[in-house]
Structure formats: C-alpha cells, structure tokens
C-alpha cells in the first residue's frame, strides 16, 4: 500500500519532448513508473522515449486511460496546462515547474477544484511511492521501501529526511513534495489523513518552513485526527524577518509565519519536533523503536 500513486498508476507527461521533460521522464521510466505517453502540441503522432506523443491531454487520456499527469511546461504556460488536464479528466496533476505566476495558479487551482482534480506543486520535487512509482525529479535511489510517510515543502529537505530514515534501517511508503509557493495543491491537511488511512504507513515525517500558516492548520488536524506518530521539522528558525513576506499580507493570517510559533503548535499537538533536520532519522527511530 501507499498513497495517491503506485506501480499501476498510468502517467502522462505534459511538456514531454522538452529538455527537462525528456530527461526526467526517462529517469521515471527507469525507476519503473508506468509512463504511458506524453503531450506536446504539434508533435502528436510521434514517438518519444518509445511512448506515444499526443497534441492534447484529452487525446492522451482517451487513448491511454491515463489518470495522472506530470507537468514540465514552461512557467508562463503552467496555468493553461493544469486547466487542460482538469478538463480532460486527469485525477492528479503533479506540477514540477518553478516560477509560475501566482495569478495563473489561483485560476488553475480553482478550475482543478471545480473538476475534482487534485494537484501537487507547483515548484516541487513531485511524489514518489518507494520502489514503485516516481513522478518528479527526486533521486529515486535514496527512497527505499518501508513504512514512513513523508510530506515536505522543500525538495532537498525531502531527500535529506528520506535518506536519514533509510540510513536508520527504515524506509518510505510515499514521499510527497508539496512545494513552497504561495498557492499550492495538496497540503498537509489533505495528505496527513491519507497516511493515517494507509495501513502500511506507521510513522509520518512532516517538514515545513516559515511563512503562511499551513503547519498551524496541520497541528490542529493532527490533534484531532492523526493517531500515528509524527516527526516534524520547521526550517527557518534563524531566517531574518520580512525578507520574503509582503507587509500587508502578514496580517491576513494574524501574526502567523514564524518557525517558533509553528514548532510550538505542533509540539502542543503531540508531534515530536526536532530543532535540526540532522535529527529527523533519530527521531523516527525513537518513535518506531
């Protein structure tokens, strides 16, 4: 078991024939991901990486039965690509592209919600179910199969966390990089209950950072719904204030945003909070024994 994706998930790649799309699709196929084709406008009918190329997502879905799309299109076209996937009946879009305009993501996510499509990202490493299905840009070799679920806003901290968990002799069920943009798809509060429901997942590692209040919302949810042990790290305890956050934006969610506040909220919810990412593996060991 795992969450969201497994070896049977049929995946297409939007932006399939581009440099990034090609490189990472190749890596995903090598990992075992069931990539059934891709989409690049005006290249329909061609074959790329031994898979069929389609002009539209609708054609790709009709022909392959794909339910998941991995999106690599350039930032200016991401919103368009996500909306196309939603209308074509894709169930989960994994948006890797970095630098998508915020306005486009607002529109795209609202449209995805309307069509019942889940999204992950943008600006994220993607999702991986260990030794089954990798949809994204993470180095697959560090994710050994096991019983720890991982959710992270940061790409490299996902690798760091997974690597430590595996070095302690445990492994990963599914790891999801949710991205750190202001507008993101699935977040802690959608993914935590999935791990809670997954019989194989015995422990959850949650990695957050400063800004916004998703981690505070997660703390409230964990207190009420999550019975499995959770380890958390919040990056940015030493980050200077006000460097990235807009002035007026800060008051919308109260004074939320500091690492300290998030760590306290998670601790109060019974989460094992570590002060350094170097301690993630040890904390998992402590909880799983």
């Amino acid at each position, binding site marked *: 078991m795992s969450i969201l994706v497994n070896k049977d998930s049929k995946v297409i790649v939007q932006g399939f024939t581009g440099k990034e799309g090609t490189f990472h699709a190749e890596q995903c196929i090598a990992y075992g991901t069931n990539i059934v084709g891709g989409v690049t406008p005006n290249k329909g009918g061609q074959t790329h990486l031994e898979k069929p190329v389609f002009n539209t997502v609708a054609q790709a879905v009709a022909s392959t039965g794909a339910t998941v799309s991995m999106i690599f299109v350039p930032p200016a076209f991401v919103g368009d690509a996500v909306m196309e996937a939603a209308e074509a009946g894709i169930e989960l879009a994994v948006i890797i592209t970095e630098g998508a305009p*915020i306005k486009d993501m607002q529109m795209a996510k609202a449209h995805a919600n309307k069509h019942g499509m889940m999204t992950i990202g943008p600006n994220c*490493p993607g999702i991986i179910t260990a030794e089954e299905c990798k949809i994204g840009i*993470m180095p697959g070799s560090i994710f050994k199969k096991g019983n720890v679920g991982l959710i992270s806003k940061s790409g490299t*901290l996902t690798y760091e966390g997974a690597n430590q968990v595996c070095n302690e002799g445990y492994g990963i069920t599914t790891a999801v990089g949710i991205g750190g943009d202001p507008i993101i798809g699935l977040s802690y509060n959608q993914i935590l209950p999935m791990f809670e429901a997954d019989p194989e997942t015995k422990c959850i590692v949650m990695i957050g950072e400063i800004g916004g*209040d998703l981690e505070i919302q997660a703390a409230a949810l964990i207190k009420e719904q999550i019975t499995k042990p959770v380890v958390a790290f919040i990056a940015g305890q030493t980050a200077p204030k006000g460097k990235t956050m*807009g*002035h007026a*934006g800060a008051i*919308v969610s109260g004074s939320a945003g500091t690492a300290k506040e998030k760590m306290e909220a998670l601790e109060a919810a019974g989460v094992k909070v570590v002060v*350094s990412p170097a301690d993630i593996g040890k904390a998992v060991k402590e909880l799983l024994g």
Partner: protein
Amino acid sequence: MNIHEYQAKQIFAKYGVPTPKGIMVESVKDAVVAAETLGGPVWVVKAQIHAGGRGLGGGVKLAKSLEEVEALANEILGMTLVTHQTTAEGKLVQKLYIEDGADIQSELYLSVVLDRKLEMPLIMASTEGGMNIEDVAENTPEKIVTIPVDPAIGFQGFHGRQLAFGLGITDKNEQKNIISFAQKLFKLYMEKDAEMIEINPLVKTGDGEFLALDGKMGFDNSALGRQPEIAAMRDLSEEDADEIEAAKYGLSYVALDGEIGCMVNGAGLAMGTMDTINHMGGTPANFLDVGGSANAETVAKGFEIILKNPNVKAIFVNIFGGIVRCDRIANGIIEATKITDVNVPVIVRLDGTNAPEAAEILKNANIANLIVGDDLGDGAAKAVKAAAEFKGK
C-alpha cells in the same frame, strides 16, 4: 518586487484611481521648480524609499511656502531614513516626491493582498487610516472590513456595497466614489500581477472625493516577464548589491550577521543548515541557495560572494544532489580555490547524485583547509569547531 510611491501613483493615474498631483525630483532645485509647477498653496515633501513608516521617521513633511519646500528638500534629500520597516542602518533618500496638499476630511485604509488560505485576492479596508494596520488588527479588529474577490467573477456590485457599508459610508455620492475607486484598484491589481497594493491613508476630501494619499505596491516576481512596464520600474539602488550580483548567477543570497558562510542547494535545506549551525552553537553568516543548475562557475561565484564578508571564519558547503550533481559542485570548489584566495577552512558535505565521484575528485585535488563532513550533523559540527579554531588563531 517593490516600487516607489511615485511609481505606484503613475500606475494609479493610468487606471483612473484618483491621487493628488505630484512630481518626482532628485535635486533641491528641481523640488522648487516642481512646487512652482504644482502651484500650491500647500505642498508635501516626501522621501521616496522602499519602506513604510516614512512619516514617523521624519521623511514626509508639509510645506506652506516655496522657501519651506526648499528647506525641507534640503533636509530630507540625502538623509538616512530609519523606520520600523528598514534595517537599523536605514535607507539613503535619493528621490523626493513633491505633492499637492489635499483637503483632508477623514483618513481611511485600503489594500488588496493575496489571501493564501482562501487562495484569492482580498480587499481590506478600515476607517482607521494613517495608523499602522497591524496595530488596528491587534487592538480593534472589528474596524477592519475584509472582502475576498474571486478572480473568476471579478469585482462585482455586491463587493462594492460590502465595502461602502462596511466603512459606514451613507452618502450616495460618496458610496459611488469609493466603489469606483476600489473597482479600478482591483482591476489594476489583477492586470498588473500585483501581489500587494496598500493605500494608507486613503483620504476623503471636503467634497466627498477619495484620494490615494500614499501608494505602496509589490509585484509577483514570477510574472515580471509579461509585465515589462513594471519590470522597468525596478530600482536597484533599493536592493542589496550582493544579492543582485548573486542573482545574476542564479544564486539566491541573503547576508546575515554570523561567522559561518553557507553554500547549500535548495531553500529548505539552506534554512535547515543555518538552523543546524545555530543549534550547534555557531552562527550562520548567510543564506545561499545555489539552485538547481549549479556548475563550477556558479559555485566559484558563491565562494567569492561569501568571502566578501569579513566576518566569515569558515564555509560549510552542504549539498544533497538531486538535479544538482555533486561532481559539478566538487569541480566548482576546486575552481573557486584557484580563482579566489580561500583562506578559511571549508567543510564539504556532498550526498546524493554522483557523490562518490565527487569524493574522488576532492580527494585527488589535495586542497588545504578542506574538511569532509559525513552527513549534515557531522558537517555542521565540524564547521562550528573549525570556525572557532580559526578565530582563535
């Protein structure tokens, strides 16, 4: 990206958002000419820097004669303004905005921001204009009206009515004016890919008109490619020179006041590395994310920027290679030691893609001062120790 008040008001004017007339100047002489052109009888002399709280800091003053305009321009131009939004060193005032005085009957607050929870723009308004809005939110939250606007339907009549009634505006002419004001502001927020617009104060004049007395705007950096007119308004002198230099090479750099230079891939791991150093009793000298396309040249540049900081006593290179290949980073380190004089200890921890190749490259290079860290915790501990020893020398 942020812009100056005078630039925000240029954009307001294009969208028909009413503002007092004003002229931006960069010398005392031009300030007087501007005041003459505007006609008076009252002017406001305003420092143009990218920070709020200018009035309290002494950067916004009223003049009742051309002589006063001259005296105030002399006083404010070239001063270093310290406000609650600047650093303790403050910001040098290089530009002034000379503006017509307004007939102020009351002061309001109006802003449009992105509400991350609702995932849509939010109009915020308050009758408590001219005050710090954080204080209003803290002490009298009932005095703030919030109106989310779904971009799919845009600014509708009911949004306007919520705003007008929320602010307690009963006069029909005034209602029409404030609704029109907010509608235009929302339109420009969407069309210009703004992240934040704040007007504090928004004033009501004696004849029931509303004027943007101040204007603060921030834009979505990811959208600047399709907003060339906005991108052209960037004022590099308001930004940190090292950060700009780093950005040219795809590096994201922020200077801090500690002693251990950090070079890391990924923003999350970069922050996590700083936190780890801090936890082990050291102090980070900077945040530096080398990004996904790091190569020998960018790594060498990163070293150069870190070493410009005289407080640096050691450098911790912490890479977990995903897209970034460790062998490229290793070559970058060797390159850097050739170009730049690296006299502080360098602690290197390379893990992930091509890490064994990288270890081999570094081993063969025989660089003095180089210490290998086995993992994040080990690397950070060695960096803290090495910095302390270097300091002791």
